């Protein structure tokens, strides 16, 4: 196994690219030390935008959401704890909420903060926080679920999408969970969670073999401690980081770590990255970047940022690129989040990725000129590949790029590097 490739793969999995400095340090300190550095990060708690200033020409909601999305993308670019941000993105796909029908951008901003805070902590804490989160209470109708008038929407997705997965519960379990969760509502004056005992159904229930006057806390606890939740979550994490199916024994190994560490996600991730199953996927080049990951990693290369008025158009121009590549935060195709992996690529989304590469390379001409100043064509290519974190590019790709660099100059070469299949994967 190419050591350089393995380290770059790890850093790209845990973030949005790898700088030459990071890669050098990683190789010096060794793989295991790098896994620990990345997983045991110093948590960041950036202040989410207060969503009061709007770009001109936007309606209130759309403009606020554009501000929020831009802010988050820039946070991904500038973060010093990349895995925290990567996991925030993972949870955003897992516990999806959408602009419609949540409509209150402040709720979405607060949910983003919540996911970041709990990014690698105990899954049970995260599950409880999400179940009481106003954006989620609106998105899946939890706030209208009350004694005598149960709304099963949240309970169903809680079991099917967030924890156990289909086939591991009955319709009766969903009904019981909905009753148990009744009374978790919203204080609309302050826009925060409110426990409303008068709307709670405190009758006896039977849920996944547990009986009693179960409430929402109990349901969340039972689910978070369930071995099937451990298996399903570990399976999802492995697929998210590698792009390939999880070997059955790897699911069991990681699930055991989850249960042994009482659901602490950081422990699972450390075991995952240190495991041989993960390392063996490095050469496969199957870990397709999501559109957000792709867009962010391309901008990081030349220290760019998403800004209002940047480039040839307003913020919306950049966000529109994400829509056409297939992933705009808070605009998931369904409650199940985005279909990941190979599903990110069809002819249309690939075309839009290639065009995006061209846009980025053309937009940062000045930074590019600094990067390749005084270099021969060969040196310029090496510097650009290094800046893109692609020193480990396949020799075939390198040969193709060398030809274009000699013939067409750095800007077109950078566009090609960003458009290359190697840059579409981790």
């Amino acid at each position, binding site marked *: 196994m190419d050591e350089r490739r393995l380290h770059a793969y790890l850093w790209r999995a845990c973030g949005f690219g790898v700088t030459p400095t990071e890669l050098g340090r990683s190789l010096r300190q060794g793989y295991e030390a790098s896994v620990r550095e990345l997983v045991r990060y110093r948590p960041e708690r950036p202040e989410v935008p207060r969503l009061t200033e709007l770009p001109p020409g936007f309606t209130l909601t759309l403009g606020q959401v554009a501000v929020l999305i831009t802010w988050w993308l820039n946070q991904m670019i500038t973060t010093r704890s990349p895995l925290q941000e990567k996991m925030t993105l993972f949870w955003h796909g897992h516990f999806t909420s959408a602009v*419609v*029908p949540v409509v209150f951008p402040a709720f979405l901003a607060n949910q983003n903060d919540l996911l970041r805070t709990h990014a690698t902590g105990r899954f049970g804490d995260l599950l409880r926080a999400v179940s009481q989160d106003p954006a989620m209470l609106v998105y899946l109708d939890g706030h209208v679920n009350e004694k005598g008038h149960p709304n099963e929407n949240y309970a169903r997705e809680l079991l099917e999408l967030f924890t156990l997965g289909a086939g591991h519960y009955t319709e009766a379990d969903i009904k019981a969970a909905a009753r148990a969760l009744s009374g978790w509502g919203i204080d609309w004056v302050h826009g925060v969670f409110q426990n409303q005992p008068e709307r709670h159904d405190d009758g006896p229930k039977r849920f996944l073999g547990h009986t009693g006057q179960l409430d929402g806390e109990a349901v969340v606890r039972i689910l978070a401690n369930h071995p099937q939740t451990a298996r399903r979550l570990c399976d999802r994490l492995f697929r998210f980081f590698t792009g390939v199916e999880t070997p059955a024994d790897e699911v069991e190994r990681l699930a055991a770590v989850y249960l042994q560490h009482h659901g602490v996600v950081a422990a699972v991730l450390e075991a995952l990255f240190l495991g041989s199953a993960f390392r063996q996927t490095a050469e496969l*080049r*199957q870990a*397709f970047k999501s559109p957000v990951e792709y867009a962010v990693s391309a901008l990081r290369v030349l220290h760019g940022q998403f800004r209002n008025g940047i480039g040839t158009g307003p913020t919306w121009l950049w966000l529109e690129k994400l*829509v*056409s590549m*297939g992933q705009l935060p808070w605009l998931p*195709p*369904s409650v199940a989040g985005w279909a990941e992996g*190979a599903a990110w*690529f*069809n*002819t*249309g*989304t*690939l*075309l*839009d990725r*290639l*065009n995006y590469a*061209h*846009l980025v390379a053309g937009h940062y001409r000045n930074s590019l000129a600094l990067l390749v100043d005084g270099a021969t064509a060969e040196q310029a290519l090496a510097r650009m590949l290094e800046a893109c974190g692609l020193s480990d590019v*396949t020799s*075939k*790709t390198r040969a*193709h790029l060398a*030809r*274009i660099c000699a*013939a*067409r100059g750095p800007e*077109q070469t950078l*566009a*090609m590097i960003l*458009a*290359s*299949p*190697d840059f*579409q*994967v981790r």
Partner: protein
Amino acid sequence: MKRREFFQATLALAGVMMLPELSWASPGGRKLVMIHLFGGNDGLNTVINDCGAYRRARPRLALSGTALAKGLALHPALEPLLPLYRAGKMAIVNGVGYPDPDRSHFASADIWHTGVRRGAAHYGWLGRYLDRAGGEAVNVGSSLTRALYAAKSQPLCLRNPDQFQFAQPEDRALLQGMYADFGGHLGRTFERLEGALDHCHACEGESVASGDLGKSLSVIARLLPYGKVFCTALSGFDTHSGQKDRQAEVLGQLAQALVGFMRRVDDKTLVVVYSEFGRRVEENASQGTDHGTAGPLFVLGGGVKGGLYGEYPSLDHLVEGDLVHTVDFRQVYTTLLGRWLGGDATAVLGGRYEAVPFL
């Protein structure tokens, strides 16, 4: 292995009998173009039943349209379609919807596109058809419609074939080399993209009309020989406020695009125009309408038996302020699958629905 060979090999392995529908092409090279009016088009102001109940529910939004037949009229912005209607090349199916309607755009669109209750199927109705019958699907728009989600069929997605930034031969050759060497899913996707771009550039033609839908239908017109099923969408129908101008604008765009497109295609192309739901009977306080239920659907083409189909929903017998559908959208799908594409509608839809005789 070519896709066609792949299907045949799969079928041979599975020991499946070659049913008549399992031919590569639809009968006689027929094409189906589905246009989704996204946002929930107000059906009551599209095909107008100008009665007392309508005027009472719509004091500010009521329109007098251009007379069709049986007391019904068409929105003035759709007037360019009248020659097609009068020539018997346009069918209007009234009251299309489904039981227990969902008023969320996404949920209702999913129901229309999967053809089953919400969450009951992952794949789309056209995707399931293509998985059985074979044939290429083309999606023109920024996102892939769920109607084309499929287990095997891989729809071609394309939005702006003329805005490819690496169109220069040497750039393309370089990308081609890199993607071919890389192989796998990315290599295959790039190869398909190239094929489609080549096809598009080989059949450049005049734009069928201006506007978003005009552009999309122009791309479809160029790709018609490439595929069998085509899907696209037009947004802007979610008229909660200021409906009069906004709906007139988008319906006007629809009419222009349809007229231009129908002029370009032959009788083997069938166009269907639908929306995920209609709108509430009573207008709201912002001169708009909120999400409702059933609405009219258009079918255009030389093969159509033109005229009016489906009973116009009663404005006196509403459920929760909404129309009750008179035709299930799966009846329309049954006609399209059985009488146009030559498919097994019952198998695709998982049930038997009475066809609407517009074909």
